[in-house]
């Protein structure tokens, strides 16, 4: 029994998933990519570019789910505003891609993006400067979400805003950004956002090879982030984080500055979200304020809940399954998919508080106990 109990304490078991996960993830992606590039379109095993981009999108969501899980599942901070960090990362990438269009926009203006031309703006707003440099844009993609997360977290955690209040505040944060980015004066293309991208680092975004490359990069980065996060969370810092989740005051009384731990974890998570956003945009081909909408942020939480929070693998699986289900539902029964989605949320929270991984754990537990019993009998 003791062995079992020990076995299921988080932070130890989830470590066991790392290797198989990485292997499968990279295996599947490489196979899929190869199938897309080297097989003829009529072959039975051919993977259409549609599927590739779809999978690419899912992986971005998986990364995002990871980010949410790290702070919610491990540190008990329920952020309803992670969509904001995701979108900010996305916008950074979007601005870069926008600048790459150069004079190939419909108005042929070498400097200004089309939406600025027909709202007849005269020169580029300052925050668009430098965005034509890939490295700079990518720096922004992680820096902007990171800094925002730091400022917000620093304020919130130091003044000990916790639980529901924090969740609502994060929601307010993303909602405010949503409204802000809708404004055309902001210079982010308003409701239309940024779209009609042409190429990235000189590679044509519409070429299959580019898509596959993006897809692979996403997969690899996901694997890397997964491993790193796993390492962090199974270090002593990971234990402190769990401690904070389970009893923050206790952790303070044994001498941990919990607010600092929370801030840095929040920043880390936000940065991951930013990266996910940056990878997401070139693959779906558009970024617009819709990504900031609070509903999206709630959905992310749901992915994690479904997969099983407190286990990284759970977050990833949750994201993949829910989004896959969504795609299928919208195709099969468009009118009813909200029912299904809604029902899923309710049932999971009611009957699978630890998500699918939790269920899997219970089943395993049962089997083992059964096994343990039999010899005695």
């Amino acid at each position, binding site marked *: 029994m003791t*062995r079992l109990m020990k076995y299921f304490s988080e932070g130890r078991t989830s470590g066991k998933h790392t290797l198989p996960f990485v292997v499968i993830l990279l295996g599947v992606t490489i196979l899929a990519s190869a199938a897309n590039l080297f097989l003829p379109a009529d072959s039975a095993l051919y993977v259409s570019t549609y599927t590739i981009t779809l999978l690419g999108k899912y992986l971005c969501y998986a990364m995002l789910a990871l980010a949410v899980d790290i702070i919610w599942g491990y540190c008990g901070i329920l952020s309803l505003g992670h969509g904001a960090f995701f979108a900010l990362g996305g916008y950074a990438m979007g601005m870069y891609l926008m600048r790459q269009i150069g004079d190939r926009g419909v108005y042929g203006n070498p400097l200004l993006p089309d939406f600025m031309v027909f709202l007849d703006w005269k020169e580029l707003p300052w925050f668009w400067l430098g965005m034509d440099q890939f490295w700079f844009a990518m720096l922004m993609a992680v820096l902007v979400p990171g800094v925002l997360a730091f400022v917000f977290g620093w304020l919130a955690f130091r003044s000990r805003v916790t639980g529901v209040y924090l969740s609502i505040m994060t929601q307010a944060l993303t909602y405010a950004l949503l409204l802000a980015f809708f404004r055309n004066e902001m210079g982010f293309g308003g409701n239309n956002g940024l779209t009609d991208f042409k190429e990235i680092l000189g590679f044509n975004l519409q070429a299959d090879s580019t898509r596959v490359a993006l897809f692979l990069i996403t997969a690899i980065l996901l694997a890397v982030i997964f491993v790193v996060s796993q390492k962090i969370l199974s270090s*002593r810092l990971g234990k402190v984080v769990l401690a904070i989740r389970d009893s923050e005051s206790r952790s303070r*009384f044994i*001498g941990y*500055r919990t607010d600092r731990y929370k801030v840095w974890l929040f920043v880390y998570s936000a940065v991951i979200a930013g990266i996910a956003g940056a990878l997401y945009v070139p693959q779906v081909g558009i970024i617009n304020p819709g990504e900031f909408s609070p509903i999206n942020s709630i959905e992310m939480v749901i992915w994690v809940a479904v997969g099983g929070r407190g286990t990284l693998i759970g977050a990833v699986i949750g994201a993949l399954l829910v989004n896959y289900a969504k795609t299928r539902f919208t195709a099969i029964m468009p009118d009813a998919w909200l029912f299904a989605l809604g029902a899923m949320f309710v049932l999971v929270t009611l009957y699978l508080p630890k998500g699918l991984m939790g269920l899997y754990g219970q089943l395993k537990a049962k089997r083992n106990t059964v096994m343990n019993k039999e010899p005695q009998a």
Partner: protein
Amino acid sequence: MSALALNGLESTREFFRRDQVWPFLAPEQAQVNVGNQMILYVEDLNLSFDGFKALNNLNLYINDGELRCLIGANGAGKTTLMDVITGKTQCDSGTVYFGQNHNLLNKDEAEIAQLGIGRKFQKPTVFEEQTVFDNLELSLKTDKRVLPTLFSRLTPTQIDRIDDVLKTIGLAKHRFMLAGALSHGQKQWLEIGMLLAADPRLLLIDEPVAGMTAQETERTAELLTSLAGERTVIVVEHDMEFVRSIARTVTVLHQGSVLAEGTMDQIQSNKDVIEVYLGEEAAGEEIA
């Protein structure tokens, strides 16, 4: 106008005082200065929750290495006092010094804990989702800033330390059990163990034997008495038997201030104590 000038002058003087260096230049004194045997100074402490005076001009001095028992009826301010000492709640007025050089009132829980003040709560609070071992590992006396924690590894000495703590609290064979799965008494022990692992100068222990069996209680008594000497221990307890068994000095709190102080016998013979605290017991005896 001139007044202003004077003020300005005053403040500058204040700022350039000869007899002391600027606070930001002063060296960080990690060592607790226990020059005259005193480790804790609590002076005219006041605190009120909307109207109700939880602490009322409370004065308390604890010698280095002594074992002190705090008793008092519910609402006498025992727990509140501990809250103030450990930085959980801010007091309205008064001073709390740890040694002669650490003003606890301008520090937060974490800092206070790092100074070497350990606290055990009324109802045991341990990290239920983690193993007994992890619980102890977390409470070890180490550098507790973020990055060091991230890269820290368990050193053999630390492991040994954890092991003998495990022995002292008799949970050696449960080391890989989830803390949540322990019995109530065992949790109490684990929490004490967590204090030990941090080897503090001062332990504040709130009702250690609540919900313990007789022999568990006994062992707790032994443990606490053994601790005293190298460490300072303050125990809050309702169980008079237990108090009598460990106490050297007892302080009686009543309505937020010290009512009496002395050995158990002195206390029991003390008039007003009998009135306010043992009052009903005495009455009970008479009736019996």
